[in-house]
């Protein structure tokens, strides 16, 4: 499955990119596993997505918990807790 990964705010700045695509085999991986997989790909990703940092996740623009399992092509976003208003 092909995932479009988006990063926002401090995570985007730290990694240095706003968006990337990620081909994943096999299908069916939790967002937490995807986060760990991305973190293994570079030092900057590892820092920005470190397990002890408060990172929120969205799939197809819906905020969801990291335990959610992704099974098909979709847009996954990683961002810090929101601070609007």
């Amino acid at each position: 499955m092909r995932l479009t990964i988006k990063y926002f705010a401090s995570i985007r700045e730290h990694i240095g990119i706003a968006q990337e695509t990620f081909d994943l085999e096999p299908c069916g991986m939790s967002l937490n596993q995807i986060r760990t997989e991305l973190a293994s790909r570079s030092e900057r990703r590892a820092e920005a997505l470190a397990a002890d940092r408060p990172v929120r996740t969205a799939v197809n623009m819906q905020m969801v918990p990291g335990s959610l399992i992704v099974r098909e092509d979709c847009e996954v976003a990683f961002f810090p807790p929101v601070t609007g208003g």
Partner: protein
Amino acid sequence: MTEPIKSNTSVLDESTRAVSAPGIGEAAQGTKPELTIAAGFEVRVQRQQIEIESEMAPLMRNPKVGAVVNFLGIVRQFGDEDEVSALEIEHYPGMTEQALWSIVEEAIARWDLQAVKIIHRIGRVALGNPVVLIVVASEHRAAAFTACEFLMDFLKCHAPFWKKEIGRDGVSRWVGAKDRDEREMKRWG
């Protein structure tokens, strides 16, 4: 009294684009019942200044409206850092509008409201300027007061905006999420 479905969502920036209220598309395909989003309900993300009077005036033309309550969030000098000169606000285009519509729908389900308008700025906003405007209109004041507070509490925790404080020294720092915002959102159940 209310006019038929007319969602009014827009992102006013260089790449102006409109996004329908969630569910409107599905309703057209017959997969979901029609939403009761009527004229007077609007969410908008914009780079321009918020013009308070011109945003509020149309709501008063609805003869059923007897109360209008608004919340205006302003860039203040002392935030996480002292001597803030501006905020730089980022958002998640598309998700922001969906999240704001969900919040509006939740408010409509809880209170009898005539109009709701949420306008949030993105980009740079200087000290003393509005960042967000929420306007709620109802027949009587109680619903408008309560719904306005509810909308703001939910926006704080669910809408994908991120603020960065720009100090007078030119150094910028991301604003951290506050535990109290989570607590204030949870009291609504």
